[in-house]
C-alpha cells in the first residue's frame, strides 16, 4: 500500500472528488445525447475527406497504381510513407494502455481507452496502404500462407512478410485488449439504458458481464497478461517495419540503428496524435476534469524524451555515415541535408527535434494552446521523417544515370487526405457510441475506491 500512499501525494487523477454515479454520467452522457453541432461538423469534414480518399482509391483500383507519383527509382513513395506514419501513430495507444499499465502508471486510466481506440483505427488505416500498393488488393489473400493451386507458399525470410504477420497480430491483440476493457463498461451502460434497441445491443455486447469478483480476479490477470504480451509486441511491430528498410541494401536504409530509432519515432508521433485529439475532445465533450492538464503535461514530458531520442538517431545516422567511410552512405546523408529535398529534411529537424525542446519549460508544458500548436508540428514532422527516409534514400541511388525526382500526383494527395478521413470517421463514431474513458478503471483509482482493510475468511483482520 505504500505505493498508493506516495501516489496520493501526487496530483489527483480526477479533479474534484467525483462520486461513482457522476463518473458514470459524465462518461456515458456523450453516448446518450444527440451529437452536438461540433461533432456533426467534424464528422462532415472527415467523411468528406474519406469520400475523396475513396474516389482516389477507386481510380487506383481501376487504372492501377500508375495513378500515383511513384517512378523508378522512387518506387516506394506515399503508399509506404503513409503506412509507416499510421502504424507509428498506433504505437502510442499500446504504450499507454500496456506499458504504462505494467509500470502501474495510474494516470493512464484517463486516456488509455481513447488511445487504444486510436491504435486500432490507426492500424486499420495503415493496413490499407501496403495492400493497395500491391496493385490488385483483392488478391491480398496471397499474402498469407494459404494452400493454393500452385502449391507454393509465401517467402518466410522476407521482412515484407514479417510485416504481414506483425501488423495483423498487432491489430488482433490491440482489438482484443480494447474489447476486453470495454466489456465491464458496456455492462454499466446496459444497466443504465432504458429498454430499447440500445439496451439490447449493449446486452449482447456485454455478454452478460456481472462484475462478479470471481470474474474480476481472472479478468485482471488476463488484462495483465495481455499488457505483458502487447509490450514486446509493440516493440516488435515497429522493429519489423524498420526491417522493411534495414534489411535492404539501399544506403540510408541499411543501418542497424533503424529498429530502436523507428520505435522511438513511433511513440513520439503517437503521443503527438493522442495529445492533438485529446485536447480537442476534452474540450468538446466537457471532460476537462477527467482528462486533466496533468495528463497533458505527462504526455508532453514523454514527447520531450522521445523527441530527443529521434534527434539522437538523426545525428547518429550522420555520424555513422561519416565513420563508415562508405562513399555511398556519406553521399546519401549529405544529399538529405543539402540536396533537392533539403527542405523536407529541415522541416523534420525543426518539428521533431528543435520545437519539442520548448517542453523543458513547465509553463509551456501546462499551456494548452501552445501544446496544441507544438503537437501539430510533431505530427507534421513525423510524417516528413518518413518522407525523408523513403524519398531521399531512393531518388539518388548508386547509378547517377537513373536518378529522378519524385512528385506526388493528385491521387497521392487525395489518398493521404482520405487516410485522415478514414481514421477520424472511425474515431468520431467511437466517441459517439462508446465510453471514451474506462469507467471501471477510473472508479478504481478515485480516492477512497479501494478498501483500507484486508480481512481473511478465517477472521484475521489485516490492517494496513
Amino acid at each position, binding site marked *: 500500500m505504500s505505493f498508493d500512499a506516495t501516489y496520493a501525494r501526487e496530483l489527483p487523477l480526477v479533479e474534484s472528488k467525483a462520486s461513482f454515479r457522476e463518473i458514470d454520467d459524465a462518461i456515458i452522457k456523450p453516448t446518450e445525447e444527440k451529437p452536438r453541432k461540433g461533432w456533426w461538423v467534424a464528422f462532415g469534414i472527415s467523411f468528406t475527406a474519406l469520400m475523396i480518399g475513396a474516389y482516389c482509391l477507386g481510380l487506383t483500383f481501376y487504372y492501377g497504381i500508375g495513378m500515383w507519383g511513384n517512378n523508378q527509382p522512387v518506387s516506394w513513395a506515399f503508399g509506404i510513407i503513409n503506412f509507416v506514419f499510421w502504424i507509428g501513430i498506433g504505437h502510442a495507444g499500446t504504450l499507454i494502455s500496456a506499458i504504462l499499465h505494467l509500470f502501474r502508471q495510474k494516470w493512464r486510466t484517463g486516456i488509455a481507452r481513447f488511445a487504444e481506440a486510436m491504435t486500432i483505427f490507426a492500424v486499420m488505416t495503415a493496413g490499407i496502404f501496403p495492400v493497395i500498393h500491391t496493385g490488385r488488393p483483392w488478391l491480398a489473400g496471397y499474402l498469407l500462407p494459404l494452400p493454393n493451386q500452385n502449391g507454393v*507458399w509465401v517467402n518466410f525470410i522476407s521482412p515484407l512478410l514479417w510485416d504481414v504477420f506483425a501488423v495483423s497480430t498487432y491489430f488482433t491483440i490491440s482489438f482484443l485488449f480494447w474489447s476486453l476493457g470495454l466489456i*465491464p463498461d458496456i455492462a454499466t451502460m446496459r444497466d443504465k439504458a432504458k*429498454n430499447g434497441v440500445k439496451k439490447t445491443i449493449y*446486452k449482447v455486447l456485454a455478454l452478460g458481464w*456481472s462484475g462478479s469478483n470471481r*470474474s474480476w480476479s481472472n479478468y485482471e490477470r*488476463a488484462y495483465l497478461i495481455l499488457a505483458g504480451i502487447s509490450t514486446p509486441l509493440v516493440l516488435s511491430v515497429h522493429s519489423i517495419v524498420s526491417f522493411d528498410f534495414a534489411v535492404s541494401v539501399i544506403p540510408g536504409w541499411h543501418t542497424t540503428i533503424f529498429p530502436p530509432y523507428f520505435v522511438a519515432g513511433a511513440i513520439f508521433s503517437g503521443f503527438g496524435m493522442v495529445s492533438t485529439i485529446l485536447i480537442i475532445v476534452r474540450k468538446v465533450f466537457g471532460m476537462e476534469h477527467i482528462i486533466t492538464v496533468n495528463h497533458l503535461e505527462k504526455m508532453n514530458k514523454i514527447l520531450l524524451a522521445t523527441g530527443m531520442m529521434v534527434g539522437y538517431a538523426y545525428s547518429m545516422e550522420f555520424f555513422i555515415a561519416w565513420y563508415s567511410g562508405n562513399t555511398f552512405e556519406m553521399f546519401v546523408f549529405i544529399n538529405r541535408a543539402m540536396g533537392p529535398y533539403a527542405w523536407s529534411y529541415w522541416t523534420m529537424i525543426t518539428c521533431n527535434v528543435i520545437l519539442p525542446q520548448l517542453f523543458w519549460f513547465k509553463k509551456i508544458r501546462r499551456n494548452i494552446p501552445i501544446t496544441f500548436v507544438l503537437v501539430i508540428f510533431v505530427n507534421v514532422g513525423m510524417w516528413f521523417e518518413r518522407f525523408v527516409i523513403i524519398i531521399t534514400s531512393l531518388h539518388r541511388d548508386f547509378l547517377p544515370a537513373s536518378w529522378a525526382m519524385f512528385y506526388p500526383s493528385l491521387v497521392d494527395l487525395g489518398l493521404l487526405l482520405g487516410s485522415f478521413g478514414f481514421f477520424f470517421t472511425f474515431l468520431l463514431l467511437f466517441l459517439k457510441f462508446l465510453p471514451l474513458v474506462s469507467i471501471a478503471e477510473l472508479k478504481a483509482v478515485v480516492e477512497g475506491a479501494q478498501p483500507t482493510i484486508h480481512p481473511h475468511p478465517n477472521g484475521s483482520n489485516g490492517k494496513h
Partner: protein
Amino acid sequence: MKKLLNKITELLSKEDNEPRSKKLYGLASLYNTPDEIIKAAAAVAGRGFEKFDVYTPYPLHGMDDAMGMEKPKIGYVSFVFGFLGLILVLLMMWWMSGIDYQNIIGGKPFFSLPPSIPITFEGTVLLTGIATTIGLIILFAKLPSINSPIQDTEFMGRVTSDKFGIVVKADDEKFIPDDVKLLFQTAGAFEIQEIYYRESNLTNKTPLFNGKFFVAIIGTAVVTAIVSYFTLNWVLYDVVPFDWMWKQDRIDAQSKTNFFPNNSGMRMPVNGTIARGFLPYEYKGMPDSSVRLLANPLAVSKESLERGQDRYNIFCSPCHGYYGEGDGRLRDQFPKPPSLHNQKVMNWTDGNIYHVITNGQNVMPSYAEQISVNDRWNIVNYIRVLQRSKNASDEDLTKAK
C-alpha cells in the same frame, strides 16, 4: 423499417419482462463502501459458504483473499497456448519452406532459425492473446450469460454502477434463508433482495443464444460464402480491374486496329530486314542438282549432334519419325514421307539434305523460317548419324570394342 426494428427489439428484450419463477436463485445484499463489502465477504466466506460471489463495479484489491479464493488460473491457459503457438508456427515455416516447396531465395538455406524468429514471435503472441481472451470469457468468466437470473435485476443495476453486492446462492449446502439474511444484516447491508430464476432458466431455454440463433449465423456465413464465390468468379470475372489483367490497352498480334493506316495490328519488318542466323538462301527454288557444291560448314562434334537431335526431334520427327523411317506421329494425316535411309538420301551430299530442309520438297514445306542456318546443318549431321546407325555392320561391333 422502424416497425421491424421495434419488433426485433421486442423479441430480444422479452427476457427483461419475462416473469420470474417461484424458485429462489439466491439472496443478494448491497453495501455502500469498499470496507463494508470486504468485511462482509470475509464473513460470508468464514461461515463456510462456497456458492457465493461478490459483485463490484470495479475490481477491489484484497477481495480474493477476503473471499478465500485461489489464485487466478488464466495464466496457465496463456502459457500453454503461447507455447503451442511458438511450436506450431515454427513447424509450419519449417515444413512449408524447408520441406514442401523448396524455393531458392538468394542462395540461403531453405529453413534456418534467425529469419524465422520474427514470425515465430508474432505467432506466439497471437495465440497467447486469443487464447487468453477466449479462455477468460468462456472458461473463467463463464460468459456469455445474458440470461443468468441475476441479469436484469435491480441488484445488477446497482453493482455495475456505484454499490457493492454479495449473492449467496440457494443451492449452497449451508443455505438457510433467515441465517443468510441475519449474516448480511450484521455485516452492514443496507438492502437485501431475493432473486428468483426466470422461467426460461428452469426450462433451459435461452431466448438469444438458442438453436435458431446459431442456425441464423451459420446460414449467413454460408450465404455470404456462396454469394462472394459467384460474384468473384462469375460476375467480376470479366470486369476491369478484376479480370486478371486479361484486358489491356495494347494491340494484339493479328487483331484489327485503327491505330495503323492499314488497320492491321501486325507490324511487318522493314523491307530487306534479315534476322540473325537466318541469312537468305542462295539456291532458293532451284533444283537439287544445283546444290551439289554446298558444303557442310560444321565439324561433327558432340554439341552439334546433340543440338541436331534436339532440333530433329522437334521439327522433323512428327513426319519422319524419331529414327527417320517415315513412321512419324502424323501417320495417315499427312502423306507418308519416304525413309531417310533409302539409297538416294544415303548417297546425297550434306548440301542436298540441307537444300530439302531449306527449300522444302513437293509436299514437305520449307523450314527456312523456323530453323536457323546453323541448326539446319546440325540436323544434317544428326541425320548422318541416324543413317550410319541404321546401316551398322557386324564389323562396327568389333571396331567399337
